[in-house]
């Protein structure tokens, strides 16, 4: 095993901010034009991604994690709130050039490597196309050289052989690497990776996670890694954001969140992860899990129906994120602060992620 294969350690110090969402909200209208039923995809998301950082977004299906990625990618328009890329609002992207430029900086890699590559084109097609669009500086010869370099960067060697292959000649893991190579062709700053390993075989998943870690290390690319698998999030990410019912339940440095989960949902999630290395413990009580209400949810904590610690306030007031440990915040009325001094008040005044 080489150094390059080692998972990254959480870093100290704050790198410049790359992308920030400001009270980002997306509601989907259900039914007809006059309908008053709204599905709250995500509500009031304030998320910052820094240079050279991997942020993992975890949560169950329907928790809004893919919605955030699609908002950032510009697939959806926000209902309210904003997205700032290096301090510039995406609302200011008017010209085709600006839009193309942004999409090149923040490309997306999709979940299904079988559906995201066209079966009728060779591997070279997608990569060359991306290079033609986003790398106007390169000559034809330069593009070919760059395409080979990209395939080598994602671990597909000999690169020349892979360029001439069709998707059906590739395994799932190799296809997903092509997806990363296409994203790399745009010289990205941030790759939005939406469940990039969940459809791959268990034995090849870790290779793709290691690829993400090495791209961050060698090419200084940040990632928003979306997953339902909290163990894989721990493996590659610096910061963990746990979503529940369209809201951020908890966020903080990965190891700190795992060691000191503050939100009852995070605690439940961690207790449910099957871990063969842990001693056998079969609790007698089984929790019946019901999905949260996200259609016209109204006020109150969305986890309250399942929460063992719910108090009266939880059904009246939606809890705001509070800093409870250094760089670690949770949206819960009940969770206690571990910070020194007067816990509640000081913590509430601190701005997020600073």
């Amino acid at each position, binding site marked *: *095993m080489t150094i390059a*294969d*080692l*998972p990254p350690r959480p870093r100290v110090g704050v790198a410049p901010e790359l992308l920030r969402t400001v009270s980002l909200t997306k509601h989907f209208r259900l039914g007809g034009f006059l309908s008053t039923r709204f599905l709250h995809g995500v509500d009031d998301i304030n998320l910052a991604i820094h240079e050279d950082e991997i942020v993992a977004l975890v949560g*169950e*299906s329907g928790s809004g994690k893919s919605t955030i990625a699609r908002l950032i990618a510009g697939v959806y328009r926000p209902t309210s709130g904003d997205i700032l890329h290096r301090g510039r609002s995406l609302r200011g992207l008017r010209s085709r050039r600006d839009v193309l430029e942004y999409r090149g900086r923040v490309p997306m890699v999709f979940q299904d490597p079988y559906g995201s590559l066209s079966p009728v084109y060779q591997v070279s097609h997608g990569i060359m196309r991306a290079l033609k669009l986003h790398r106007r500086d390169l000559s034809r010869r330069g593009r070919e050289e760059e395409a080979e370099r990209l395939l080598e960067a994602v671990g597909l060697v000999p690169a020349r052989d892979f360029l001439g292959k069709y998707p059906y000649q590739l*395994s*799932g*893991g*190799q296809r997903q690497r092509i997806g990363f190579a296409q994203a790399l062709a745009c010289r990205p700053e941030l790759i939005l990776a939406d469940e990039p390993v969940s459809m791959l*075989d*268990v*034995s*090849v*998943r*870790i*290779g793709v*996670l*290691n690829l993400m870690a090495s791209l961050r290390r060698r090419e200084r690319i940040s990632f928003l890694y979306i997953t*339902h*698998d*909290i*163990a*894989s999030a*721990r*493996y590659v990410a610096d910061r963990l954001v746990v979503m529940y019912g369209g809201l951020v339940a908890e966020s903080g440095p990965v*190891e700190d969140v*795992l060691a000191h989960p503050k939100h009852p949902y995070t605690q*439940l*999630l*961690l*207790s*449910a*992860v*099957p*871990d*063969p*290395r*842990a001693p*056998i*413990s*079969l*609790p*007698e009580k*089984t*929790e*019946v*899990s*019901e*999905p949260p209400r996200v259609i016209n949810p109204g006020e109150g904590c969305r986890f309250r129906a399942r929460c063992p610690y719910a108090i009266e306030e939880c059904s009246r007031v939606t809890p705001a994120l509070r800093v409870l440990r250094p760089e670690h915040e949770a949206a819960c009325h009940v969770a206690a602060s571990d910070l020194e001094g007067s816990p509640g008040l000081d913590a509430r005044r601190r701005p997020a992620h600073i």
Partner: protein
Amino acid sequence: MIANATRPLLQVKDLSVDYLTDRGPVRAVDRVSLDVAKGEFLGIVGESGCGKSTLLFAIARLLSRPAEINSGEIWFGGHDMVTMDEDELRHLRWRDYSVVMQSAMNALNPVMTIAEQLADAVGAHQRMPAGQLKSRSQELMRLVGIDPEHLRSYPHQLSGGMRQRAMIAMALALTPDLVIMDEPTSALDVVAQRSLMLKIKQLQREFGFATIFVTHDMSLVSHFSDRLAVMYAGQVVEIGATRQVFADPKHPYTVGLMRSFPSITGPLQPLSGIAGSPPDLGHPPSGCRFHPRCPQVFDRCSKEEPDLYARDHDLVRCFLFDPAIER
């Protein structure tokens, strides 16, 4: 029914299943032998395409063209499953064994309520007055942890976890001896998954049925199965007591699988997974099928095919455990 004390409930001997394609037969299950005792929980793990689902379908006699059993025997409670015709199988299905599929959304009928579907399954085997059927249905729903109110619901009105529970309620309706499950939790998030696994285990303790549980997620069955079979490219490569396999995995493939998933506890360790990808079963590698990916490969591996060798109560298909070359 059924099995007398000395014979296992289910015996699979040298079972081979072929898919008949235009380019000749592709062997998806290759000489698999397994026993399942009464009340036992057997986990079968492997990657996609390793033949685990085909094996289940063969055992349940649910294969359809182009797949067919090429050779081997399946004995279930004294019945020779391979030679039985559909008419005879009809009497065993639901009553003596049942199957829970991966996707309940596709397995349940979308235009019938849960109550109607339960009544359908039960009614095919047992005459039951309407009142009794209703109370039995309610009892079943409570057993799997669904409000009996949902008997009047259609499948789309239930959450993914509830649909899988409804499937399990149907599978248990006639208290079978064997419940065959094909990745029943793979569409669920971890919280729902754990809650369903605990439910299955609790019901199993209560009713004593045996379970064959197929999954690609080794960690999922680690706390639930009594024995574990690991499949690779159509073959069983290791089988043994679950705790033993986890504590001391022997086949290099099993070792590789164990090193493929990160943990949320303990120190963060670099992982490597397994190089390469599973083979095309149309052209399996010569000798040991794992040899092109194996970190411990040596000369003999590409030339001869290893047998299953006994070691510490496990069976391992690898020359490293061949007693003949014991140093």
